[in-house]
């Protein structure tokens, strides 16, 4: 019901044939661009908050599982189930518990990225060469020093790769967040999915956001892992 209403609301009856033909209308876009600003920032917040929380949880779980190997299977299974539950289903499953809104959407998005980040962090840590760890321990690094000074820095390329996947998929999934009543660019897209101008602007903003966040992480990764390029340049 709401959806249909929204569809009616997005554009007024107009004389413009481009708009009434559902075409791609630069003039209309220029006039109506401000209606996308708020959903865009909702989308940014949804994505960043979900990935940040997901990272905090998954990273902690990965560190625990790295030291206590028996944790790997249960964590993989649980996060794997969360990963396979379709997001829309998750939104509706959560509705009776957390109601409509930002919290529900965020929980579903967090649940989705856990497996991706957990697996990448763990792979990164597991790929640290044995001889590097042996040398570190042999020189007198404690387990904690070894973890933070050697293992985590060396796992950074994989960790950052996981973050990139998590961010780009979350931008995509967050377009469904309006089902949970959390707004975002998806609300705009589905508000009038037949109107090309609308879909191009809202969809384009989502793609641009994914690309921008992905690029930002990539730049961060290059800044904090200069040694990986030193190896390639040789």
């Amino acid at each position, binding site marked *: 019901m709401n959806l249909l209403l929204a569809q009616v609301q997005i554009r007024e009856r107009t004389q413009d044939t481009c708009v009434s033909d559902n075409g791609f209308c630069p003039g209309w876009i220029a006039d109506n661009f401000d209606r996308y600003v708020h959903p865009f920032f909702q989308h940014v917040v949804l994505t960043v908050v979900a990935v940040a929380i997901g990272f905090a949880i998954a990273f902690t779980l990965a560190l625990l599982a790295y030291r206590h190997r028996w944790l790997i299977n249960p964590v993989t299974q649980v996060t794997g189930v969360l990963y396979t539950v379709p997001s829309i289903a998750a939104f509706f499953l959560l509705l009776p518990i957390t109601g409509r809104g930002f919290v529900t959407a965020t929980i579903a998005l967090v649940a989705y990225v856990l497996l991706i980040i957990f697996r990448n962090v763990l792979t990164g840590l597991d790929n640290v*060469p044995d001889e590097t760890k042996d040398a570190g321990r042999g020189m007198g690094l404690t387990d904690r020093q070894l973890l933070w000074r050697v293992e985590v820095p060396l796992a950074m390329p994989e960790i950052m790769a996981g973050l990139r996947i998590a961010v780009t998929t979350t931008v995509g999934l967050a377009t469904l967040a309006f089902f949970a009543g959390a707004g975002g660019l998806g609300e705009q897209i589905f508000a009038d999915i037949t109107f090309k101008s609308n879909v191009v602007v809202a969809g384009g903003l989502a793609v641009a956001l994914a690309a921008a966040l992905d690029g930002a992480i990539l730049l961060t990764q290059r800044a904090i892992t200069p040694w990986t390029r030193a190896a390639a340049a040789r």
Partner: protein
Amino acid sequence: MNISDSAHTTGPSSRPSAATLEFRGATKRYPGQTDPAVEGLSLTVPAGEICVLVGPSGCGKTTAMRMVNRMIDITEGDILLDGQSVRERHPAELRRDIGYAIQQVGLFPHLSVADNIATVPRLLGWDRARIRARVDQLLELVSLDPNETRARYPAQLSGGQRQRVGVARALAVDPPLMLMDEPFGAIDPINRERLQNEFLRLQREIRKTVVFVTHDIDEAIKMGDRIAVLQKGGKLAQYAPPAELLMQPANPFVEDFVGADRALKRLALQRVRDVDLWTAPLVRVGDPAAQVRGKLDNSEVPYALLVDDDLHPLGWLSERALAGDRISDELRSRANPVLETDDILRDALSRLLAEEAQYGPVVDERGAVTGVLSIEILSHALKADPEQVPSGADAL
């Protein structure tokens, strides 16, 4: 205990430069295995000496080494460092006092050469200026140019350079003991030889106590002041200086392990300058022959050696050259091979055999004859007191 405490506050200069290491019945037993990995190992490494642990794979040599810095815990017995049990010390703190170099080097790929070397100094809280100075000093010590190397990442170095940085890192806080597990094992033969020589030269300066693990008996003989041969089950088969190990192997296992060419290996430990040479009458053309004939009667070498005015050897004189009043230049043979005082005995023997010669004139760096080496001297050299035969850094 006081030694290590003071080392943490005032740094390496206050620390003894080398420690005495004693294995006292050290045993390692892994749960679920009937045979111990190392069984009742007892030996003492005097301060400043290189002890090589050698043996076939699975003999427990690496396990024995790793028990010293508690990378592997001792099941029974004890290991004492300057009289103090390593079991009484906190593992991480103990390890910071012991240099550690392994075959795969294990440099930290994400840190520059300088930061790799600075690892333990930072753990011990050295200030920046001191660390920087120490890094440059160590790089020079291992024959690397500090300006060129300091900022590089390990991936930008050659295998040999990485190995050198590994040794520099192990030496960072001037530890009284170094553990080296096949440190040159992954290097090609030519560079390995160079690194071995470099390390021995370095050791001649720094005189650390070193425990060096290898499976290569030739490397053991070259590097070791003392060699501990381990056999399967982690039992010590023999612990002796290289010369003794080669000439008096304690049992058939050691004899087999050192190889059938052990006499030749033994000769490789000494140089021509280390043995007493024989003398031969040195004569010039035109010398009075009667006088030379008189000298020959008392000479160890039964031939007279013709030399020029600078004492360069020309050849062995024939009977006829001595027959007249004055010496003529009739030779029975040329003076080949001409040996040098720095030649190792094994190579000298090889050259004598190649020339089918019994005697070879030995010349100094200017080419002047200082004596004669004979096959007989070589066979006597094998009987020298093993303790007198130079080993490790002294044999270089």
